[in-house]
């Protein structure tokens, strides 16, 4: 794979792996650094890349593994209870409190889920990945991913209805 092909096909995938890195690392700056490191890694492997049958899946897998390595080094929790990185400073104090509450509730609900369900849910709904990309990153079959995702969504939906119907 030459420079032009890499720039046209691989580099745009940094847009796709950024949400994965941001969610896993819980920090925008760390996510940017991680994406850069992943792309440099892929640049060094570009000769092998062109022969790969699922390039996008491979890129997502590389990014996920890189983030897991970073987390191991830092010994930080994986599940996104720290997803308040998007908290905007111009929110009114009332809505900010509500948002923090909601964020905390859903963060806890996701943590309650079995690990695979939580991960698949985050990769699909937060990171916006295709099933094939999730399959490449997790090593699970697409049908299994659909089942895990369905269970996670239904569980969350039921729990959120319970919590918010009393308010």
């Amino acid at each position, binding site marked *: 794979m030459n420079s032009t092909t890499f720039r046209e096909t691989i580099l745009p995938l*940094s847009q796709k792996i950024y949400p994965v890195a*941001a969610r896993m690392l819980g920090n925008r700056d760390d996510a*940017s650094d991680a*994406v850069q490191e992943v792309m440099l890694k892929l640049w060094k492997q570009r000769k092998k890349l062109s022969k790969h049958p699922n390039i996008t899946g491979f890129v997502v897998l590389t990014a996920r593994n890189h983030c897991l390595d970073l987390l191991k080094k830092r010994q930080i929790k994986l599940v*996104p209870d720290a997803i308040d990185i*998007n908290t905007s400073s111009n929110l009114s104090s009332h809505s900010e409190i509500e948002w923090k509450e*909601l964020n905390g509730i859903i963060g806890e609900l996701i943590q309650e889920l079995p690990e695979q369900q939580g991960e698949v849910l985050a990769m699909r709904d*937060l990171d*916006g990945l295709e099933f094939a990309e999730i399959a490449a990153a997790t090593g699970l079959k697409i049908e299994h991913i659909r089942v895990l995702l369905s269970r996670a969504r*239904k569980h969350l939906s039921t729990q959120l209805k319970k919590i918010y119907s009393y308010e």
Partner: protein
Amino acid sequence: MNKDEIMKKYLNGETSLQEEKELFENSGKESDPWVEFVSRNNQTPPEGLEDIIWNKIQSEKKQKQHFLYGLTAAAASVVLVLGFIFYPIGNDTEMTLSQKEQMLQEALSMFPAEENDKEILYSDELIEIYVATN
């Protein structure tokens, strides 16, 4: 397909990304806490991220090239120095005329003096007849 049908598909994990996008856009954040959570945690990459990465790749590429040029230059210098050591400039093996003459005289002096006095009378493939002159 109405909203309830798409929601059912969504809960069953059967929707496409496009359908999910439409579902989230059409659902009110206020009425659905999950929609609000997903929308607010939607991570968009910083502007110009691709350019930053590309520039970094290019600068690493240049650094590597500079290193290779340096390495090649160093190797060439070593070869040059070794060349000077083992093959000095100027050909010292060539003899001067006086040295050649000296060598010739030395070679002639190796033959016995009496052989110089003999004269060949007859010579063919089988025999050689000498005549002594003294």
